[in-house]
Protein backbone atom coordinates (compact mmCIF):
# COMPACT_ATOMS: atom_id res chain seq x y z
CA UNK A 1 0.00 0.00 0.00
CA UNK A 2 1.02 3.58 -0.47
CA UNK A 3 2.64 6.04 1.88
CA UNK A 4 -0.51 8.12 2.10
CA UNK A 5 -3.82 6.35 2.06
CA UNK A 6 -7.07 8.15 2.55
CA UNK A 7 -10.12 6.66 4.13
CA UNK A 8 -12.91 6.46 3.13
CA UNK A 9 -12.43 6.30 -0.62
CA UNK A 10 -15.78 7.99 -1.13
CA UNK A 11 -18.13 9.94 1.12
CA UNK A 12 -21.57 11.36 0.48
CA UNK A 13 -23.20 13.76 2.93
CA UNK A 14 -25.95 16.38 3.09
CA UNK A 15 -25.19 20.08 2.96
CA UNK A 16 -24.59 21.43 6.45
CA UNK A 17 -23.18 18.18 7.81
CA UNK A 18 -19.56 17.70 8.77
CA UNK A 19 -17.22 15.60 6.66
CA UNK A 20 -14.27 13.72 8.11
CA UNK A 21 -11.63 11.98 6.08
CA UNK A 22 -8.51 10.23 7.28
CA UNK A 23 -5.01 9.70 6.01
CA UNK A 24 -2.54 7.07 7.14
CA UNK A 25 1.14 6.98 6.30
CA UNK A 26 4.08 4.69 6.98
CA UNK A 27 7.31 6.56 7.63
CA UNK A 28 8.40 9.44 9.84
CA UNK A 29 7.38 12.68 8.23
CA UNK A 30 8.47 16.28 8.16
CA UNK A 31 5.01 17.62 7.45
CA UNK A 32 1.67 16.62 5.99
CA UNK A 33 -0.55 18.56 3.66
CA UNK A 34 -4.10 18.33 2.44
CA UNK A 35 -5.11 19.28 -1.09
CA UNK A 36 -8.46 19.59 -2.85
CA UNK A 37 -9.07 18.71 -6.47
CA UNK A 38 -12.24 19.68 -8.26
CA UNK A 39 -13.33 17.33 -11.00
CA UNK A 40 -10.78 17.21 -13.82
CA UNK A 41 -8.73 20.11 -12.48
CA UNK A 42 -5.41 20.68 -10.73
CA UNK A 43 -4.85 20.42 -7.00
CA UNK A 44 -5.28 23.32 -4.64
CA UNK A 45 -3.34 23.45 -1.40
CA UNK A 46 -5.59 23.61 1.68
CA UNK A 47 -3.48 23.31 4.78
CA UNK A 48 -0.11 22.12 6.04
CA UNK A 49 0.58 20.65 9.45
CA UNK A 50 4.11 20.12 10.70
CA UNK A 51 5.22 17.02 12.57
CA UNK A 52 5.46 18.92 15.87
CA UNK A 53 1.88 20.20 15.59
CA UNK A 54 -1.20 18.28 16.69
CA UNK A 55 -4.03 20.40 15.36
CA UNK A 56 -4.52 23.22 12.91
CA UNK A 57 -7.49 25.27 11.78
CA UNK A 58 -8.22 27.22 8.66
CA UNK A 59 -11.73 28.57 8.26
CA UNK A 60 -14.07 25.56 8.19
CA UNK A 61 -11.15 23.14 8.03
CA UNK A 62 -9.64 21.38 10.99
CA UNK A 63 -6.66 19.07 10.61
CA UNK A 64 -5.25 16.81 13.27
CA UNK A 65 -2.02 14.86 13.24
CA UNK A 66 -1.16 11.87 15.40
CA UNK A 67 2.45 10.93 14.69
CA UNK A 68 2.31 7.97 17.09
CA UNK A 69 -0.44 6.44 14.96
CA UNK A 70 0.95 7.85 11.71
CA UNK A 71 -2.40 9.30 10.82
CA UNK A 72 -4.11 12.60 10.09
CA UNK A 73 -7.70 13.65 9.73
CA UNK A 74 -9.35 16.47 7.84
CA UNK A 75 -12.65 17.77 9.13
CA UNK A 76 -14.79 20.08 7.01
CA UNK A 77 -17.52 21.65 9.10
CA UNK A 78 -20.89 22.86 7.82
CA UNK A 79 -20.22 21.47 4.37
CA UNK A 80 -21.48 23.15 1.20
CA UNK A 81 -22.18 21.82 -2.27
CA UNK A 82 -19.04 23.68 -3.41
CA UNK A 83 -16.96 21.39 -1.16
CA UNK A 84 -17.70 18.52 -3.54
CA UNK A 85 -14.24 17.45 -4.68
CA UNK A 86 -11.52 14.89 -4.09
CA UNK A 87 -9.25 15.43 -1.13
CA UNK A 88 -5.68 14.21 -0.97
CA UNK A 89 -3.09 14.07 1.74
CA UNK A 90 0.57 14.46 0.87
CA UNK A 91 3.49 13.61 3.10
CA UNK A 92 7.15 14.46 3.00
CA UNK A 93 9.48 12.05 4.72
CA UNK A 94 11.74 13.43 7.41
CA UNK A 95 14.77 11.92 5.64
CA UNK A 96 15.10 15.16 3.69
CA UNK A 97 13.79 13.97 0.36
CA UNK A 98 12.30 16.54 -1.98
CA UNK A 99 9.41 14.23 -2.76
CA UNK A 100 5.90 14.49 -1.53
CA UNK A 101 3.95 11.26 -1.60
CA UNK A 102 0.30 11.73 -2.45
CA UNK A 103 -2.45 9.40 -1.36
CA UNK A 104 -5.22 8.06 -3.56
CA UNK A 105 -7.78 10.53 -2.29
CA UNK A 106 -11.26 10.67 -0.79
CA UNK A 107 -14.09 11.66 -3.14
CA UNK A 108 -16.50 13.86 -1.24
CA UNK A 109 -19.98 14.57 -2.55
CA UNK A 110 -22.08 17.16 -0.74
CA UNK A 111 -25.75 16.98 -1.62
CA UNK A 112 -27.76 20.19 -1.67
Amino acid at each position, binding site marked *: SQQGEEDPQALSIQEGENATMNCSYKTSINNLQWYRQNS*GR*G*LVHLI*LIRSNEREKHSGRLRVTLDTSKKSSSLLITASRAADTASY*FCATRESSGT*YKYIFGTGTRLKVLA
Partner: protein
Amino acid sequence: DVKVTQSSRYLVKRTGEKVFLECVQDMDHENMFWYRQDPGLGLRLIYFSYDVKMKEKGDIPEGYSVSREKKERFSLILESASTNQTSMYLCASSPWGALFQQYFGPGTRLTVT
Protein backbone atom coordinates in the same frame (compact mmCIF):
# COMPACT_ATOMS: atom_id res chain seq x y z
CA ASP B 1 -1.86 34.99 -7.84
CA VAL B 2 0.51 32.26 -8.93
CA LYS B 3 -0.37 30.93 -12.29
CA VAL B 4 0.71 27.59 -13.67
CA THR B 5 -0.51 26.92 -17.16
CA GLN B 6 -0.35 23.79 -19.25
CA SER B 7 -0.38 23.87 -23.01
CA SER B 8 -3.40 21.61 -23.54
CA ARG B 9 -6.33 20.44 -21.44
CA TYR B 10 -6.99 17.44 -23.67
CA LEU B 11 -4.67 15.68 -26.08
CA VAL B 12 -5.12 12.59 -28.24
CA LYS B 13 -2.04 11.00 -29.76
CA ARG B 14 -1.23 7.79 -31.55
CA THR B 15 1.05 5.04 -30.30
CA GLY B 16 4.67 5.74 -31.22
CA GLU B 17 4.26 9.50 -31.57
CA LYS B 18 6.58 11.89 -29.77
CA VAL B 19 4.52 14.01 -27.41
CA PHE B 20 5.43 17.31 -25.78
CA LEU B 21 3.58 18.61 -22.73
CA GLU B 22 4.42 22.17 -21.81
CA CYS B 23 4.14 23.87 -18.46
CA VAL B 24 4.73 27.54 -17.73
CA GLN B 25 4.70 29.32 -14.37
CA ASP B 26 4.77 33.06 -13.83
CA MET B 27 6.08 33.34 -10.27
CA ASP B 28 9.80 32.88 -10.82
CA HIS B 29 9.74 29.57 -8.95
CA GLU B 30 12.89 27.49 -8.91
CA ASN B 31 11.18 24.12 -8.44
CA MET B 32 8.96 22.49 -11.01
CA PHE B 33 7.35 19.05 -11.04
CA TRP B 34 5.61 16.69 -13.40
CA TYR B 35 3.14 14.17 -11.97
CA ARG B 36 0.78 11.70 -13.50
CA GLN B 37 -2.53 10.87 -11.88
CA ASP B 38 -4.30 7.59 -12.35
CA PRO B 39 -7.44 6.26 -10.62
CA GLY B 40 -6.57 4.29 -7.51
CA LEU B 41 -2.90 5.27 -7.68
CA GLY B 42 -3.00 8.92 -6.71
CA LEU B 43 -0.32 11.29 -7.98
CA ARG B 44 3.06 9.87 -8.86
CA LEU B 45 6.13 12.00 -9.45
CA ILE B 46 7.71 11.62 -12.88
CA TYR B 47 10.43 14.29 -12.78
CA PHE B 48 11.47 17.23 -10.66
CA SER B 49 13.59 20.21 -11.65
CA TYR B 50 15.18 22.57 -9.11
CA ASP B 51 16.84 24.94 -11.57
CA VAL B 52 17.37 25.56 -15.25
CA LYS B 53 18.84 22.48 -16.90
CA MET B 54 18.75 20.59 -13.57
CA LYS B 55 16.49 17.59 -13.07
CA GLU B 56 15.91 14.64 -10.79
CA LYS B 57 14.07 11.44 -11.59
CA GLY B 58 10.93 10.83 -9.67
CA ASP B 59 9.26 7.52 -8.98
CA ILE B 60 8.21 6.66 -12.55
CA PRO B 61 10.60 8.29 -15.06
CA GLU B 62 10.66 5.37 -17.53
CA GLY B 63 9.38 6.37 -20.95
CA TYR B 64 9.63 10.09 -20.17
CA SER B 65 12.21 12.81 -20.43
CA VAL B 66 12.12 16.48 -19.48
CA SER B 67 13.59 19.75 -20.59
CA ARG B 68 14.06 22.99 -18.68
CA GLU B 69 15.85 25.56 -20.79
CA LYS B 70 14.19 28.56 -19.15
CA LYS B 71 13.22 29.02 -15.55
CA GLU B 72 9.53 29.48 -16.23
CA ARG B 73 9.07 26.54 -18.57
CA PHE B 74 9.25 22.80 -17.88
CA SER B 75 8.48 20.36 -20.65
CA LEU B 76 7.60 16.70 -20.37
CA ILE B 77 8.44 14.56 -23.38
CA LEU B 78 7.06 11.15 -24.21
CA GLU B 79 9.65 9.85 -26.63
CA SER B 80 7.38 7.18 -28.11
CA ALA B 81 3.90 7.31 -26.67
CA SER B 82 2.31 4.07 -25.55
CA THR B 83 -1.24 3.27 -24.46
CA ASN B 84 -0.13 2.80 -20.85
CA GLN B 85 0.82 6.46 -20.80
CA THR B 86 -2.81 7.45 -21.15
CA SER B 87 -3.31 9.51 -18.01
CA MET B 88 -3.86 12.91 -16.47
CA TYR B 89 -0.59 14.87 -16.31
CA LEU B 90 -0.19 17.59 -13.72
CA CYS B 91 2.53 20.18 -13.55
CA ALA B 92 3.38 22.07 -10.36
CA SER B 93 5.87 24.69 -9.22
CA SER B 94 7.14 25.87 -5.86
CA PRO B 95 9.60 28.44 -4.57
CA TRP B 96 13.12 27.49 -3.56
CA GLY B 97 13.16 26.15 0.00
CA ALA B 98 9.36 25.76 0.07
CA LEU B 99 8.74 22.38 -1.49
CA PHE B 100 5.47 22.16 0.39
CA GLN B 101 4.10 25.21 -1.36
CA GLN B 102 3.27 23.55 -4.65
CA TYR B 103 0.98 25.31 -7.10
CA PHE B 104 -0.63 23.07 -9.66
CA GLY B 105 -1.69 23.63 -13.22
CA PRO B 106 -5.11 22.50 -14.48
CA GLY B 107 -3.76 19.27 -15.93
CA THR B 108 -3.57 17.69 -19.38
CA ARG B 109 -5.65 14.63 -20.03
CA LEU B 110 -3.65 12.61 -22.54
CA THR B 111 -5.14 9.71 -24.46
CA VAL B 112 -2.84 7.48 -26.48
CA THR B 113 -4.65 5.31 -29.03
